[in-house]
């Protein structure tokens, strides 16, 4: 085996000489099998959603559709029933958009200011609050659910959209604050000092110096929050009413409803539609997504 130099992060060294050595067959063979395990569900989802029910009952979930039909997609989007509402996933999709957009913006705005404060304007006791926040990230949400319900009831936001936004802001805070604090701490201190010398205050420095140079970390935070909030189920089911259920809750209600004949093609179309937004974010953002989850992995 030739000693190969690592050039940067990628596998761009000179290729091994014997391409079909036993070692290579083993490596690629194992990776191929693993890739099949990971890729199969997505494939099955796609082909199932494009088949008609008669074809599905014939029983081969792996076979590509003999006759491609988009009817399950239309049905999942516009006609599938949850309870009394029969307007499909479109309702949940709109709810999820209405929930996700403000939640992402507000949670990031709050957390970035937190991180900035912790990095540059540390006051007495700031680290203690931060520690509680980080420890809180590991505590099961279940223990804070009911107190949160009470708090929201007290301020009149229980069951309201703004209440759920607040919940996402609160529970997204630990990871995001950590993310921003670490980023702002890594910036050269001279930037901040120069601003101070010029007489700029807290907000001036934040908006004019820190924000413009922090775009990458904001993108990472956005990726983290969009996928996280879009995929949330627990908060959605606890803090919203049936009319404002986010997509994940509605999807679960559609697929796991006990009434009627199971329409697997519609179910898979609905599942796929719900997964499209985070998948889109994932495929577009590429390496940044990896950075985001590595940072946000603390959320567990």
């Amino acid at each position, binding site marked *: 085996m030739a000693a190969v130099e690592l050039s940067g992060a990628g596998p761009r060294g000179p290729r091994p000489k014997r391409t079909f050595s036993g070692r290579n067959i083993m490596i690629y063979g194992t990776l191929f099998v*693993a890739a099949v395990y990971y890729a199969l569900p997505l494939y*099955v989802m796609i082909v199932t959603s494009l088949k008609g029910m008669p074809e599905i009952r014939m*029983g*081969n*979930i792996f076979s590509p559709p003999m006759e491609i039909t988009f009817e399950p997609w239309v049905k999942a989007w516009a006609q599938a029933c949850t309870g009394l509402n029969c307007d499909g996933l479109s309702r949940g999709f709109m709810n999820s958009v209405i929930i996700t957009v403000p939640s992402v913006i507000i949670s990031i705005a709050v957390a970035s200011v937190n991180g900035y404060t912790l990095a540059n304007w540390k006051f007495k006791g700031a680290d203690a609050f931060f520690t509680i926040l980080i420890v809180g990230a590991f505590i099961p949400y279940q223990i804070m659910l009911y107190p949160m319900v009470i708090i929201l009831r007290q301020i009149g936001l229980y069951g309201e959209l703004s209440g759920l936004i607040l919940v996402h802001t609160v529970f997204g805070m630990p990871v995001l604050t950590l993310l921003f604090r670490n980023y702002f701490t890594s910036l050269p201190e001279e930037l901040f000092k120069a601003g101070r010398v010029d007489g700029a205050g807290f907000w001036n420095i934040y908006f004019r110096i820190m924000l413009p140079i922090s775009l990458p970390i904001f993108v990472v935070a956005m990726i983290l929050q969009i996928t996280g909030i879009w*995929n949330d189920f627990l908060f959605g089911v606890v803090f919203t009413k049936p009319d404002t259920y986010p997509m994940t809750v509605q999807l679960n209600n559609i697929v796991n409803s006990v009434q009627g004949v199971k329409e697997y093609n519609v179910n898979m179309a609905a599942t796929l539609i719900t997964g499209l937004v985070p998948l889109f974010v994932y495929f577009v953002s*590429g390496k940044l997504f990896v950075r985001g989850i590595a940072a946000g992995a603390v959320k567990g």
Partner: protein
Amino acid sequence: MSSVNARPKSAVFKNLSAKIAAVPMILTAMVVFLGGTIWTIVYSFTNSKLLPRLNFVGFDQFERLWSSARWITSVENLAIYGALSLVFSLVVGFLLAVLMDQKIRFENTLRTIFLYPFALSFIVTGLVWQWLLNPELGLQNIVRSLGFTNFTFDPLYDANIVIYGVLIAGLWQGTGLIMVLMLAGLRGIDEEIWRAARVDGIPTWKTYVFIIIPMLRPVFITTLVLIGAGIIKVYDLIVAQTGGGPGGASEVPAKYVYDFMFGAQNLGQGFAASTMMLITVIIIIIPWAFMEFSQRRSR
């Protein structure tokens, strides 16, 4: 106070904007995280039913909890799921990372394939695997149609193995992340170490076992904590894939909490169960925090 930006001002007004800006963080930390946790612990000693009431009954709720068959099943499931999930995540994640680190081609493509499930929600994960494990039309049927007519694998309808069906889905969703973290760790290891091992004629597998893995200790600990914290919270996956069935065989503690708090309107039980979850996490976190802390000190 010796802040860099210290100016002779009165203590309260020093950094006033910063303090105002920190109000959301302070409220979250003190009211929700600290206050909420203490509140739930206190109320787990009451007999609250529909509404929280401060009518203390000692350890009654906990006694009832531990004599409930459903709770015992939940805890057993969590133990099985947790132990296997830890082992398989670490082993599979590490092996995949090692294979990916062999200067292979298609690395980016493979990483994309391994990691995409992590972008999906547990609801989507659970529903896809519910379909794949469908006994009449799913994997079992495929294998049978290949000639193995006695082949049986229907975990979602077999109370004895249902938790393994959930495990397959959970691993599918989460191992990609572990692989990525491990791979980042492997890439961080100095090439000199590999060269030195090669010069000394140490076989590759030995280098991994005796040199690389010990060097990756921090990565292993981080992933361990991540997996551990995730396992305790397992909820959506069960709801979507099995609904706790068949016959309550795949119940987990998080679901117990939710059902008693918001379904059965037996708040006291829900609080007691969530307090038990907290204790479990503390048992996991404290050794880790201790190790991290003592490590930093010795540096």
